[in-house]
């Protein structure tokens, strides 16, 4: 709290973790919220970093879509092909992955090379 804003501090920590994991020889993917519509839980720029063992730090939605993002991230670690994912309004009657808060977000997932 003393250093900088909470969001920024968190961002710095997340990227530092990504660099550390990479330096240890792990596979690393980075997911970034690039745009939001309506009421989205995390603003553009929010990041989630995942390694090949599914360790993660950060968040792109506060829990709603992380598991789906992690699945995509594992595949992207293999292929190296980045992907733009979109998550929309959740139908609360269904068990679909989605945002209960009624927003829509785009998440860019890429491998750290």
């Amino acid at each position, binding site marked *: 709290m003393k250093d900088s804003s909470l969001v920024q501090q968190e961002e710095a920590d997340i990227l530092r973790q990504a660099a550390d994991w990479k330096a240890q020889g792990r596979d690393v993917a980075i997911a970034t919220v690039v745009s939001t*519509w309506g009421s989205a839980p995390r603003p553009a720029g929010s990041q989630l970093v995942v390694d090949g063992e599914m360790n993660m730090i950060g968040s792109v939605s506060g829990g709603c879509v992380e598991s789906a993002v992690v699945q995509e991230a594992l595949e992207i670690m293999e292929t190296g092909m980045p992907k733009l994912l979109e998550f929309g309004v959740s139908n609360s009657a269904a068990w679909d992955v989605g945002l209960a808060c009624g927003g829509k977000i785009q998440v860019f997932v890429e491998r750290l090379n």
Partner: protein
Amino acid sequence: MQSDTLGQIQNDREGKTPVVRALDLESGEEHLIRPFEDDSGSPLVQAARNAALADKSQVFEADGKRIFLQVFNPPLRMIVVGAVHISQALVPMAQIAGYDVTVVDPRRAFGSDLRFPGVALSNDWPDVAIEALKPDRRTAIVTLTHDPKIDDPALNVALTSTAFYIGSLGSRKTHAARLARLTTVGFDDDAQARIDGPIGLAIGAKSPAEIAISIMAKITQTLRQTPSEGSPVSVEQAPPAVSAGA
């Protein structure tokens, strides 16, 4: 993302240089823009500058491409000149709001560790102290002593910096006298207009804590509502269909 890019972002953060990562959302190609050092004047750089000023990562659309501009700004800082009663309320508020705070007061009895536990303190003269801190556009400078001997040297240095906010405690009369002194040392109307005085948002604040709230409110307003330069980046609209996740 390339590890090199990540390394450069971290270096820029250490060096307190704002940097924007431009990421092509189709190809995944990326490059870094230093928006206040790049004079190319291209629409992309202008958009990156606006994004950095607004402290808001966003998509820029041009030539059918969607470029994500991810802003990495240095931390917010506040330099408080005068280890006075108002400062004792203002400093913790600023810290909660995410500012890295330094208190400057050459009067050792005021600027002591006892009054400001855990806060960076400087007992140098304000001009020397502020110059050493190298205020940038993520820095707010507040003078609270209303003693010209201390506040004036602080303002002389603050006005030559890019600090996004400069505020000075004092009544209208005190402030008018202060501006007259600044005129004699060569600061023109534009420079003087940068000083928020009488300080703070007009909320009828009376007690030191209330005055601190009014100062914090004005700084927040300046940070968040100052219009950006040039044309705005393209307004967010519903995107074209993209590969759906899940």
